């Protein structure tokens, strides 16, 4: 494990996570959540968990964003809070 890189990516994870929570627009939140899962994938990679990173890359980056966008497409873009 490379602690410098680990620290940098952890910071990015936190920023992306808080950002995707704070954004009012649900489509923007879905897109930012994609960025969050990129960072998680990098984090797993740095820890050496290659299989988990692969799962995160395929599920988190690609398909889950598409599902979120499809769900936003069929419901609404506004959140209540």
């Amino acid at each position, binding site marked *: *494990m490379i602690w410098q890189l680990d620290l940098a990516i952890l910071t990015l994870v936190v920023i992306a996570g808080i950002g995707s929570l704070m954004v009012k627009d649900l489509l923007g939140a879905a897109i930012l959540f994609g960025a969050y899962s990129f960072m998680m994938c990098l984090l797993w990679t740095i*820890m050496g968990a290659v*299989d988990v*990173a692969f799962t995160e890359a*395929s*599920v988190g980056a*690609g398909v889950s964003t*598409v*599902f979120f966008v499809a769900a936003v497409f069929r419901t609404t873009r506004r959140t209540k809070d």
Partner: protein
Amino acid sequence: MKILGLIIAILTGAFLIYAAVDFPDWADPTSPASTYLSPRFIEKTIEETSVPNIVTAVLADYRGFDTMFETAVIFSAAVACFFILRIFVHGEPGERLYRHVLTGVTIRVKEGKIPPSDDFERIDASWTPHDLIIKTICRLLVPFIQLFGLYVIAHGHHSPGGGFQGGVILGASIILLAISNDLRTAVKRMGEKLVGLLCALGVFIYAGTGALCLLLGLNFLDYAALASILHVDPITARSHGILIVEIGVGLAVMTAMIWIYNNVSSNGEYDEGL
């Protein structure tokens, strides 16, 4: 109320961080997991299953039950999506829009009737002209993505990957087709019934392999029993058994992804999608 939630979240987070201090360090050789469990797998996996990637062996062989029920969970998620969202309404027929390909004239046709000539193509209500670049590039890329997905499934023994990842990539290729053209194109290629059957078949392959082992006289999911069918020694049989199981997982995950996407994006009507 928001402030209360924030306080609770901060308290829980602080508690978790406090608890995490007691965790063993990353890759600490004296931690409980590394003292006897990991060395056992690291030393014995190759000679017991002849699979170089230990994670795959643990996932599909040593903890086969776990993975089987994970697959079942994904299957039931897709089925739940289907039961909640899918609509079969036989009310009064609605209208469908058809567009003349050459002139761009759009007409409305009652549902169940056929447009006047073959030059008409079915379009969505919120239709926009096809994007030439996206359509062409996706057409060229989809086969390569599918090949890569199959490669990931087939090489789960030697490199990272396996049924889950390969299945997701395969499903994503069909979803890409639905995004770049429209939903009906993808559904034409992979019909609804086919998707549902393949999804169930994937779980059936997994559980059926386990049951076959049981019938052949060993424990459930002990692939060494397959040696007599495949005409190989028990160690290679375990390796092949893992591959068979991975194919089942791949099928189930791929079709579950397509199924969920179709239902969510078309609101259960299988008519117009994202």
